[in-house]
């Protein structure tokens, strides 16, 4: 079987969940007998040195089977490239490789219309698309968070989308929906990493038979040696410091605990990209960091560690007891949960989306009302003080799906089936 994987960005150039999963899949498929796999990842102006004059698709750093798509002239409003030479190069690339399966892990920087182009060039190929968020449905970054009141959106419509992005008329979103659906119609299978995603897609009009749940899975470095601590009051945040990841909820919880006079805890913030947060949230975060830094060392409760590489995870996870996922959006799958579980750390997370699907409250972690800093503060106080709770929840953690499970699931999809039940309800 000849497979072409297509992904937004290469994870070694730009970090992110979709590209990480695509690369894990690439590595996993490459190790399987009878499968030939190539990976086409995009770059944009974040990697200007990798553009070669006159080239549209090139190799990547001497690695067999890895190629770079040199994206340009991309229109984020309609999710398409206006560069005809790029389209011609992509078409030539497809004709050259003649894949049996073309698996898009994202369309951004390529164009949603490349799905249709692929179908036209390879009428018999199996086209698979993995939805890593709801970008086809939601023009507001695919988060399905209402910008009017920050509530989670369960249903897109022309008027509701216009309310989130009022500069555009309802008709724009009506056309956008038709445009997205026109291209998704050529896809044989849409895979989703979490089952809860199926309902919104079906409600939006995607046939349920097209949707297949395949878990994400990664291979991670071995955990560090277990450390026994008297108190389990160290909390860790892992992820980008952007609004939807909800670090502001965690910091608000810290402020609440301080105001209540409870300071016997610590929080470690691991991540960066605050420059992509909204100005208000960024200013809030920077003010908190400055205020925390001004405190005497012994009074500080929050440490900002900056960005990290997956290889650092054993050390970073070893320093904490609880992993906090305070995301205020659907949090589609949440690789951080897999990472925390891999290192034996129970997760405290908002009670919606991917975390709610994966975590069993009180068994392998704890859930709180999404975005509710006071509820999070209460949980942080409880878990810091309740004897035996950490041991019980850590003991309830099942090993998270790894790369092999994901590869097996995708291979079944490529062969024409699905491996997981469709929990479309």
């Amino acid at each position: 079987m000849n497979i072409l994987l297509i992904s937004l960005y290469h994870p070694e150039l730009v970090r992110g969940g979709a590209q990480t999963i695509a690369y894990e899949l690439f590595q996993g498929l490459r190790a399987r007998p009878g499968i030939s796999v190539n990976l086409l990842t995009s770059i944009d102006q974040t990697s200007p040195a990798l553009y070669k004059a006159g080239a549209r698709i090139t190799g990547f750093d001497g690695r067999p089977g890895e190629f770079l798509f040199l994206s340009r002239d991309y229109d984020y409003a309609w999710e398409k490239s206006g560069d005809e030479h790029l389209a011609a190069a992509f078409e030539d690339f497809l004709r050259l490789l003649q894949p049996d399966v073309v698996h898009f892990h994202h369309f951004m920087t390529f164009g949603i219309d490349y799905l249709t182009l692929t179908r036209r060039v390879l009428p018999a190929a199996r086209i698979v698309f993995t939805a890593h968020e709801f970008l086809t449905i939601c023009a507001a970054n695919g988060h399905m968070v209402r910008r009017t009141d920050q509530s989670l959106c369960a249903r897109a419509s022309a008027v509701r989308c216009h309310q989130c992005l009022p500069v555009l008329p309802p008709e724009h979103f009506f056309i956008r929906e038709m445009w997205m659906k026109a291209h998704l119609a050529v896809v044989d299978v849409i895979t989703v990493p979490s089952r809860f995603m199926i309902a919104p897609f079906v409600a939006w009009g995607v046939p349920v038979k097209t949707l297949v749940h395949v878990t994400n899975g990664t291979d991670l470095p071995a955990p560090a040696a277990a450390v026994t601590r008297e108190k389990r009051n160290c909390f860790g945040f892992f992820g980008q410091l952007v609004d939807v990841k909800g670090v502001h909820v965690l910091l608000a919880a810290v402020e609440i605990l301080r105001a209540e006079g409870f300071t016997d805890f610590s929080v470690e913030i691991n991540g960066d990209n605050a420059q992509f947060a909204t100005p208000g949230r960024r200013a809030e975060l920077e003010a908190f960091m400055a205020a925390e830094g001004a405190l005497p060392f012994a009074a500080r409760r929050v440490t900002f560690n900056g960005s990290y590489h997956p290889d650092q995870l054993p050390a970073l996870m070893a320093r904490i007891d609880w992993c906090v996922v305070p995301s205020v959006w659907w949090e589609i799958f949440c690789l951080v949960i897999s990472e925390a579980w891999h290192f034996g750390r129970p997760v405290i997370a908002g009670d919606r989306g991917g975390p709610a699907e994966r975590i069993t409250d009180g068994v392998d972690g704890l859930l709180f009302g999404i975005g509710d800093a006071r509820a999070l503060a209460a949980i942080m106080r409880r878990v810091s003080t309740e004897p035996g709770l950490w041991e019980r929840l850590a003991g309830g953690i099942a090993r998270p799906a790894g790369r092999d499970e994901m590869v097996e699931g995708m291979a079944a999809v490529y062969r024409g089936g699905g491996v997981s039940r469709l929990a479309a309800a």
Partner: protein
Amino acid sequence: MPVSDNPFDEDIYLRLNPDVRQAVTVGAFRSGREHFERYGRAEGRPWVRPESVVRDRVVMTGRPVRQVLTAPAAAVDTVQVSPSGALFVVGWVDDAQDPLESIDVFVTSWSVSFDAATLGRLRRIDAEGSLGRAARHAYGYWTFLYAARPLASGHCSVILRLKSGTEASFAVTASSLDDHEMRKIVLAHLAGAAYFGNPYFLGVAAIAPAIGAQLVAFNQLLTRRALQSPYVERFGAVGRRYRGSIIVCLYGKPEFMFLQMAMFARQAGIGDYEFIYVSNSPHIAEALLREARLCTRIYGVDISVVALHGNAGFGAANNAAVPFAASARLLVMNPDVFPYHADFIARHDAAVEGCPAPQTDLFGVPLYYDDGSLMHAGMHVEVDRLPHLGAGARAPTQVLRVEHYGKGAPAETARFLAPRAVPAVTGAFMSLARGWFERLGGFTQDYVFGHYEDADFCLKSSAAGRTAWLHDARLWHLEGKGSARLAQHEGGAIVNRWLFTKTWGQTVTRDVIATAPTRLRKGAGRRG
């Protein structure tokens, strides 16, 4: 008793006019009578015993004195000319008491005189403030003339003459601007005009005497220029014949090409159709050609792009596309129209093949808003009238209004969806037998930018013996989203409303409406 019947009384006169008594005392006058005869009467000095004065009546005490003429308060805001000979004049004048008679414009090498009856009059709030008047009077004036010959710019004298003969003269500079800019500015001015009353009628009334015809003539010039030697490029198959040619006129928004391609390319049978995109926006031509290449690659459709040199308007642009069509069936379609059903093409073809020619030479389809309600199921024409309540017998201002059947109705309202003859169909989608379209000379090209050509064409067709039909092959129409709408387009719509009414008013009133509005005669309704 009239004052003039009173005898002159020396004592009374001197008592009532102490200064005269003083003058007589010092010998300046021999008597009060002498002063009265020489000056007092003309000065209107009192000379009648107070108890003899007639109350509550005007008493003529001498001949009316002719008032000295003074120049009226007025202004000339702008005098502009364009290279092809368009002239635009704007200003205001206080002629509430003494009506404006004419405006003369003198430049070194040319001059022109405008009868005030041909001017557009409008409300000028700034002039009302300057004059301190609260009267409902349209102080503003403007005019437009297309001379069809070069007019020099530069030093310019403008003389405003009132009925009384009073004049106000101004030395201004006639500035020069590009023909397209001239059209834009004049139409925006028309669109932005304020009136004492309903602009819907008064805008049309303002241009009816002369300006409307001048604007149409000037616009025709720009249309002819825009149509000269269009750039045409073909993408996809060459030399094929098709079942139909879908003609789409684009203005300002090239993205609608790829959006339509994505939706229509999914239709079974679309391979038997070609697309012809005609562009009224030179600045999007490059993007359009690039997108056409992409669309052919991605969707496998055959496309021609006809890029015009300027905005020729909806009618002329569609006419210009027809010679490049390789079929006997023309589907004129707006860029913001998309298929409602997955089998639109099959439904359309079934109508064309299953119905006799009189029902298919010209037909439209039901169109839907994005909210799911009906947007169009044929059109009809209504007449709006504004009576004149001032002095003199004047016919009411009459304006034709085009309405859609079923606008806003629930999607499945059967009486709107049934195939039937209708007075007209929208140009957002028209399916036409090419022979019939060409026999009628295509769309009338006199309309400015767009609007009314569709109703005009349907009425032409009706007059020639083919009434428009409606067949049930549905489409979405996101009305007004396929092009940019600016003030100049609103002005063009006013010109078109006037032109359409002028062209079809009589026919519509006689043949379509067929009834005059009921008026009550004096005494009507009384019994016995």
